[in-house]
């Protein structure tokens, strides 16, 4: 049981790192940035290059991936979304899907579609004394990833609650026009939000690659959608909501993974096939029952 919990939290941590970008960008722009999963993918590949081509230490590789992903986020915002700032929201949404497809296919063109092996930058072996004493298999990878995630989340909370730009971000997500009229440069705040969300997703990409040992140009798709579900579950636009939603998604998926359903002798559903279905069932259920999400504020559409 505690074994499952640790696996769930590890998965939830990666989802949280992606979900935060969705929720922050939604906060300031009311846009679901569907290209966010691809930022995660690019971050992962930057980390891969840093580790296996340039042989950088793990921490530095994460940092490089974060910077690279932040730049990509800024370019996407500047090139694809800013020109559509006053266009109908649907136009921006479709553009987001377009950017997502563009990056996926660009990735396949440049890197090829085949998965690449990710170097095990951190020792994947279980920590022996924990296994002996508590009977729980915890790898050093999991510990490092969890610690790094916790540090990133703490840093983010500090930025959002303590700094000027954080206050400006919250002001913009409350009321963009009022914020502008109080002297806040909204374009800059939005660009910063993209950079911040993308950097965090980039770190998530490296962790994911190290954890699962591969990276491929379509790797952003499923985690991206799952993280999106997590953000909606927690309440899109809410930063603590995204963290909570991601954790719950990790728990749900890990729980389902251990289940095997025998529908009939010829139809046996194993956990890994059920997992994705359950994730989307969660999305449908939350949209039906509590569209504002667990921590979101219910339906106050701003004009």
């Amino acid at each position, binding site marked *: 049981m505690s074994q499952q919990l640790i696996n769930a939290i590890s998965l939830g941590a990666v989802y949280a790192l992606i979900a935060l970008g969705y929720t922050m960008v939604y906060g300031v722009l009311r846009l679901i940035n569907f290209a966010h999963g691809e930022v995660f993918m690019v971050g992962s590949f930057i980390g891969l290059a840093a580790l296996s081509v340039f042989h950088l230490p793990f921490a530095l590789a994460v940092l490089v991936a974060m910077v690279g992903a932040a730049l990509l986020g800024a370019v996407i915002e500047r090139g694809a979304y800013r020109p559509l700032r006053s266009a109908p929201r649907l136009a921006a949404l479709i553009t987001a899907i377009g950017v997502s497809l563009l990056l996926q296919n660009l990735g396949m063109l440049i890197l090829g579609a085949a998965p690449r092996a990710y170097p095990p930058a951190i020792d994947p072996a279980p920590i022996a004394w924990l296994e002996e004493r508590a009977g729980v298999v915890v790898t050093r990878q999991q510990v490092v990833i969890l610690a790094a995630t916790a540090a990133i989340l703490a840093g983010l909370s500090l930025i959002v609650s303590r*700094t*000027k730009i954080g206050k400006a971000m*919250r002001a913009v997500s409350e*009321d963009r026009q*009022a914020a502008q*009229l*109080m002297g806040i*440069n909204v374009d800059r705040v939005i660009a910063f939000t993209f950079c911040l969300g993308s950097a965090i997703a980039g770190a998530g990409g490296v962790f994911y690659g190290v954890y699962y040992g591969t990276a491929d140009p379509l790797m952003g798709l499923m985690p991206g959608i799952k993280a999106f579900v997590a953000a909606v579950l927690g309440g899109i636009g809410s930063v603590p909501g995204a963290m909570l939603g991601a954790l719950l998604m990790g728990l749900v998926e890990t729980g389902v993974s251990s289940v095997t359903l025998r529908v009939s002798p010829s139809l046996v559903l194993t956990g890994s096939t059920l997992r994705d279905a359950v994730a989307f069932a969660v999305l449908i259920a939350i949209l039906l029952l509590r569209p504002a999400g667990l921590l979101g504020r219910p339906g106050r559409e701003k004009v």
Partner: protein
Amino acid sequence: MDSVSDPALLTLESCTVSFGGLIAVDELSLQVRPGELVSLIGPNGAGKTTVFNAITGVYPLARGDIRLEGTPLGGLPPHRVARLGVARTFQNIRLFRGLTVLDNLRAAMHHGSDYDLLRAALRSRRWAATEARLQAKARELLGLFELEGRAEEPAGSLPYGEQRRLEIVRALATGPRLLLLDEPAAGMNPAETQRLMDLIRSLIERFSLTILLIEHDMRLVMGVSDRVVVLNHGREIAAGTPQQIAGDPAVIEAYLGEPTH
């Protein structure tokens, strides 16, 4: 009006704002001198709030020119206009509801200097000093408006009258020279309106402000204004001291004659 050196703080010169074919503000000219309180009145839909939106850069001008102490504001984005010293309140309250009262003010104060993320991360002494100074200033402002006890509460949880006052405080927190007040007394009872009136007059002295006021409450308008400009269908139909306006037949017909007011 009478001087070549443009003594006005705010000058509107034949300003026109149109939405498609609809002309919301039509060739409006207006001068507001430093320290003056000028009221814009007129029936609903006369274009008063549109004038505010044009001054603050939210709506572009189709024709005309707006200057703040000689600096043209035309074409500047709203945040630049705000940084030049123009602040406003909103007819329908638009606070950052989820932020605390104090953070509402800090968000408004933080513009201007660059975003010192690195310094915040390093907690440098200068960052701390700036934060402390802003905090003190915010608390002082809240004190003036009897809101200091609310500093840590979410703005959206305040009672209506206090939210109205907080809107004014937040506008003041940007450090404006020109304050645009859009129906600050809306929904207030006569006693509250009287208090607001005294407060507005005292603001001019204390913050060396100039105020442009939109208001439907005629007692308030007549009590605080140095001059009144009457709009109807986007055009100025009268201007003068409150006494002059009160006796103007065109105004009485367009506005004061309405039985509901």
